[in-house]
């Protein structure tokens, strides 16, 4: 049983350690040659990550404690990153809950407000993230997705708390570590401008018009307070957004200067961008992973390769505008949808990305309680998690299967993610529709 578990973990390790292999330093205890310059971390095809991350984690992989595995300190860093991510998710959940309760009370929906307060969605999300087998597998496999997830959660927490420097730092570092969190700038700006998730803004407009129409002289003090509250809830605040952009520019310059210092003797920033972002955008490495792009670009003809690269990377950008227009009143949920889409369509996905969005899914447990196919999705995730190592074993180690066995599980995994994102968006829109219906009935009751 222990051997099977080890085999299972190492099979996932094969998926997760794609971008996290680090070159070992030269091993010359009694070298007769004169000491020469150490090689570039981007020589060969071993490492395609951040030089700052390599500076942080490289010494930890070389240093070893007597009697312990070699990667103990590196594992400890990833464990700490996971724990801090869970704490930040919990804190963000608390802020979301307070904002949601305040919004519902301002609309007069006291019953819904009490129901929302009773459910601890932040704690639930943190527990889902920490106890997720994908999080554990990514940590055991020494994947750097734990640190990337930490930076994404840090930017979301900073935006929920209206802390522009913290949000800017998280967004800059997340974009620097991997390219795909760059699209999170839209929900972060919406969070800083409009605040956390709220019901549709048309309801607040209707309430303001109604209050203006039915004003009475006796309640002038409470009416002024209500008008100010509605005004605050409706207006976009440009001041935090400007602060955020300023701090983003500051952190970006600082990170670029540090990277320039690190890689100036290995080709400079141009070489860095080619080896990191160019490697992501051109999908050079065709080793098997849990996504579908490795097999697609292994089989596609070279003439059509650039066309399909543009199509697949454009699929992420195409859905940014419709989702932003439709879900701009719920920036945190918009960020969650963006994370699911990027984890599905990125060049080198891993189970660490699934751990992040499954943890964030717990934040919206109350709004998404009517989501369809939830049991089917849960069973599908469990099935793919169990079948994917089996198919990998059949193909690579035993040789009784071929690449199509493993590609079938990758296709099933992609379909599961599609169902998850479509049904979650549908459930959230249905929830907003229900709020609109309840508020409309309440207005009619007041009018009559």
């Amino acid at each position, binding site marked *: 049983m222990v051997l099977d578990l080890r085999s299972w973990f190492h099979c996932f390790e094969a998926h997760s350690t794609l971008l996290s*292999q680090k070159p070992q330093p030269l*091993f010359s205890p009694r070298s007769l040659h004169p000491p020469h310059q150490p090689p570039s971390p981007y020589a060969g095809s071993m490492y395609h990550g951040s030089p700052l991350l390599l500076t942080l984690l490289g010494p930890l992989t070389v240093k070893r404690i007597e009697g312990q595995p070699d990667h103990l300190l590196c594992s400890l860093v990833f464990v700490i990153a996971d724990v801090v991510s869970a704490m930040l998710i919990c804190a963000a959940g608390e802020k979301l809950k307070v904002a949601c309760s305040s919004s519902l009370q301002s609309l007069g929906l006291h019953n819904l407000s009490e129901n929302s307060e009773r459910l601890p969605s932040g704690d639930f999300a943190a527990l889902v993230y920490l106890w997720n087998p994908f999080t554990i597998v990514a940590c055991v496999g020494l994947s750097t997705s734990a640190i990337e997830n930490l930076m994404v959660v840090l930017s979301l927490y900073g935006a929920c708390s209206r802390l522009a420097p913290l949000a800017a730092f998280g967004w800059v570092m997340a974009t620097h570590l991997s390219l795909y969190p760059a699209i999170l700038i839209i929900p972060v700006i919406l969070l800083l401008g409009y605040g956390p998730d709220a019901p549709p803004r048309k309801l607040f407009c209707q309430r303001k018009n109604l209050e203006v129409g039915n004003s009475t002289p006796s309640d002038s003090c409470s009416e002024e307070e209500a008008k100010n509250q509605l005004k605050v809830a409706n207006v976009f605040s440009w001041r935090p957004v400007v602060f955020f952009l300023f701090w983003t520019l500051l952190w970006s310059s600082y990170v670029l200067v540090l990277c320039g210092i690190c890689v100036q003797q290995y080709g400079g920033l141009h070489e860095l961008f080619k080896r990191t972002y160019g490697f992501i955008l051109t999908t050079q490495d065709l080793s098997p992973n849990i996504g*579908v792009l490795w097999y*697609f670009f292994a089989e*596609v003809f070279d003439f059509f390769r650039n066309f399909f690269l543009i199509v697949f990377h454009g*699929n992420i950008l195409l859905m940014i505008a419709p*989702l932003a227009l439709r879900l701009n009143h719920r920036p945190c949920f918009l960020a969650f949808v963006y994370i699911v889409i990027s984890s599905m369509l990125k060049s080198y996905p891993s189970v660490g990305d699934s751990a992040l969005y499954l943890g964030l899914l717990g934040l919206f447990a109350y709004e998404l309680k009517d989501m369809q196919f939830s049991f089917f999705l849960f069973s599908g995730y469990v099935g793919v998690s169990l079948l994917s190592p089996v198919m990998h074993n059949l193909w690579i180690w035993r040789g009784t299967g071929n690449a199509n066995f493993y590609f079938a599980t990758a296709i099933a995994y992609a379909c599961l993610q*599609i169902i998850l994102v479509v049904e979650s968006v549908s459930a959230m829109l249905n929830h907003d529709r229900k709020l609109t219906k309840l508020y409309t009935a309440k207005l009619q009751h007041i009018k009559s």
Partner: protein
Amino acid sequence: MCFAMIITRIIIWVTSITRQAYYRTIRLYQCHLHLISYTKRYSLYTMNGYLLSFTQGRWNYERWGGFDSNIEPQCKASRAATFTWRLLKDRLPTKGNLLRRNIIIQDADCPLCGQVQEEVQKYHIKTMELSFNKVDGTMIDGVGASWKNLSHSLSGLFCASINFVESSTTYSAPELAFQSALGSLRYGTLPREARLHLTMSTDHSDGSRSGINLEQTVTVVLQPNDQKAGMNHKSTAKFAVNDTGPEDFRRNAGFELSVTPKRVHAEMETSSSILYEYPIKEYTETEQFDLGLTWKHPIVWYSPHAPLYASRFSMGSGNERGAIAISLKLIQGLVAINNVKERCIYYHTLQLVVDERPQALTDFVERMRVSPSEDKVSPGVMEMGFLHIDEYPPDVNQGFGIPSAIISFPDFHAELLLVPLTTPDFGMPYNVITITCTVFALYFESLLNVLWRGVGEEERLLKNKGIAVAWQYYS
């Protein structure tokens, strides 16, 4: 008229080889023949013929015997072996040989340089010199240009696919194994052809005469013709007038008989053989005749062991269990080259096992040079320098056979290794493309449908409620 006939003959010769090349690629045999020391070998052994084995050099002669007559009718030499054989026997159709056989040709000079008469030795020397004369510019470009010229020249000579070693994905520039030519060395091998190892150096600064180390090997199976004097079990019988008894003959023979013969006959006329007579009628059913023959001196014939045996093989597969192992026997100051062209090689998982026990790398490996490999651009080169015999730690000597002399093997190579790759299914590129595009189309259409449908429904809902204030706000 005679000149045209000569040209026609040469063309037929080339065409014949070219036509047969298609069939001979099905059977490719391993050739081992050391050209550098062929003079010495030629004097030691009178080579009347050679046999190319099917076993690709993996036949265990000392254990499984020396000759298999089943493969003799099918044995055919490869083109490189045929050329080398004719080269050694001086049977190549050079102009010197043509003139010597009274074939009239117009020009007797070498077609490459046009200075001396074309001969076998000068032919190769001139080829090498032509490769070196084209060296110009920087050293790196010089080595590359010389390498290309050499590979093309030799591919023309041997009618083989030696030009495959021209591209940068099949050769490497090791520095630890050949320390006499640092920086200006190219080492390339062909794993599928009759194994030709080409190493070339263009370093002229040391004053020594540089040349091409062209090694081909023919696997020669030897059968001893005569035995040693100590193994001679023939005995000279003494013929006496009076019969002294069989005891004397019993001791003189090279073997021992378990039963005393009744009568011993010595035939002196035809040969010096001895005839032992046992009348069978003297034995009955209960006491049967049982004769045992035992040699007094054991007869042992064995082939001498190689001073170093190296083999390389792949173990397991996949990212976790895959490994490439090099097995070395009689490790004495060895330099091993492992030219690996796989995709992801993790050098931090290098392990060293000495006498079935894992050891730390720092105790044995003196130098290690790692060139990180990049897919389809440059192969990964891993060189290890082991310690010499006097540098081993004392605890390793327990149970470790210490040889009597320290010998360095700088030019020893392990056999070439073909590592099987994980292949995609080449039969379904269209299936993969269509299924993946269908999945993404499903994602795009479903999500856009959910987003768009909600808008229209909400508009109709607000209209049906008939709220004047909301309608006024929208208009």
